[in-house]
């Protein structure tokens, strides 16, 4: 079964292996499972959108500015994303920081307005509570898509689906014992598809500074150095293979910033960095 839905600003493909022995009832059931997968992924989108002013993240950003030191509760999924984000933040020495959303290109006017702290300034407490010690501007754009893929994969595993794949606009994860060929789309304008390798039971994500900007309009890269606020502008593509999509997604940002395929954090997370130039 192959399906694709417009979601998370892109197309989310879902594949569940079927063969000539799969009966019509199982096929119909697979579609039902697919509906649940998409529902769960949509929930991630609703919870973690930075653009939706009513989302948990938008509220949290406002609270941190209005009442520094406030303790608030999060949805368990958002809390889990914060835990992962802080772990990657610490391991990468702050190269991955989803707490500096004020640096996003659409928000450059705010850059100097707040001396906001990053994700590391948030204390994770018990029972899904957090303490916002300083004003932050959390933007989960660089992690939520990978997390959504992992949530979708969890649904498939719960239904004991053996071989399957979810690809959310290039952040993909495969489960089961089949090897799948992975291709890299090298440019948004279709310059090339590159055969990268075969992946089994793992995830791959890619960040490219090429896709995030539009030179004709004088736009900027969406990848921002968390310590300097500078845009990462080059013509390279950064992929990371890891066991979960959320980790692959986060580490592509650290790879794009540091460009160091020998950085120790890749080994820490059991990940493989790939730069295409």
């Amino acid at each position, binding site marked *: 079964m192959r399906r694709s839905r417009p979601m998370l600003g892109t197309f989310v493909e879902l594949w569940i292996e079927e063969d000539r022995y799969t009966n019509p009832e199982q096929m119909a059931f697979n579609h039902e499972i697919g509906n649940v997968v998409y529902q769960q992924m949509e929930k991630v989108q609703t919870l973690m959108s930075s653009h939706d002013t009513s989302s948990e993240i938008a509220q949290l950003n406002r609270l941190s500015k209005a009442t520094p030191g406030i303790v608030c509760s999060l949805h368990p999924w958002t809390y889990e994303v914060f835990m992962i984000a802080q772990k990657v933040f610490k391991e990468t020495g702050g190269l991955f920081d989803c707490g500096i959303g004020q640096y996003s290109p659409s928000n450059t006017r705010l850059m100097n307005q707040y001396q906001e702290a990053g994700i590391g300034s948030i204390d994770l407490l018990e029972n899904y509570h957090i303490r916002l010690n300083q004003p932050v501007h959390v933007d989960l754009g660089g992690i939520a898509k990978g997390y959504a893929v992992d949530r979708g994969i969890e649904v498939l595993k719960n239904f004991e689906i053996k071989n399957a794949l979810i690809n959310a606009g*290039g952040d993909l994860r495969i489960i089961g014992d089949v090897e799948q060929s992975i*291709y890299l789309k090298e440019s948004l304008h279709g310059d090339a598809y590159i055969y990268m390798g075969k992946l089994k039971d793992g995830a791959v994500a890619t960040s490219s500074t090429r896709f995030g900007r539009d030179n004709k309009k004088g736009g900027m890269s969406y990848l921002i150095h968390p310590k300097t606020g500078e845009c990462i502008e080059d013509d390279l593509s950064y992929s990371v293979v890891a066991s979960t999509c959320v980790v692959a997604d986060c580490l592509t940002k650290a790879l794009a910033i540091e460009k160091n395929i020998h950085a120790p954090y890749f080994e820490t997370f059991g990940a493989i960095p790939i730069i295409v*130039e």
Partner: protein
Amino acid sequence: MQWYSPNYLAVICLATTAPLGQVFAKHYLSVDEVKQVMFSGEVFTKIDIEVPELIKEKMSKESGVRHSYQQKHIWKSGQGSWLLIDEVVGKHEMITYAVGINNKGKIQGVEILEYNESYGDQIREKKWLEQFKGKGATEQLRFNQEIKNITGATLSSKHVTNGVQRLMVLYREYLSRI
């Protein structure tokens, strides 16, 4: 996690090479399948109607989709659900998609049926072929025939979002009133 790569180095270089035409299509669901996925058990009848030009103009104006509406498939179920199938055209792609509207007038689901991509002269031939060296023709054949697992480009679904909007104008201004 297992990763097998033909590139032993973690840095892959791409040289500028000559172009090669390339078109590929991804087929997801058929019209019959999408009916089942969205409205399991409901029986649909194809509705043959001519959407008035005035409505088409309104659809285009409100959604921003310039490509003209072809009204290929309009289906209605005995329970009052609608299934509308439409195409949107982007710079390099043509996407056929389905929108299900339930009998309360709410969107039941949006599914992609087909994704056709065409890059004409923009795929680089030499490197394109080189990547299959040592793998024989099988890998290239697989690329041409199979649905690809592609990382890298986060394709925007904005065209489809606008397309959904134009079908909702069609429903609001015309289908819900007939």
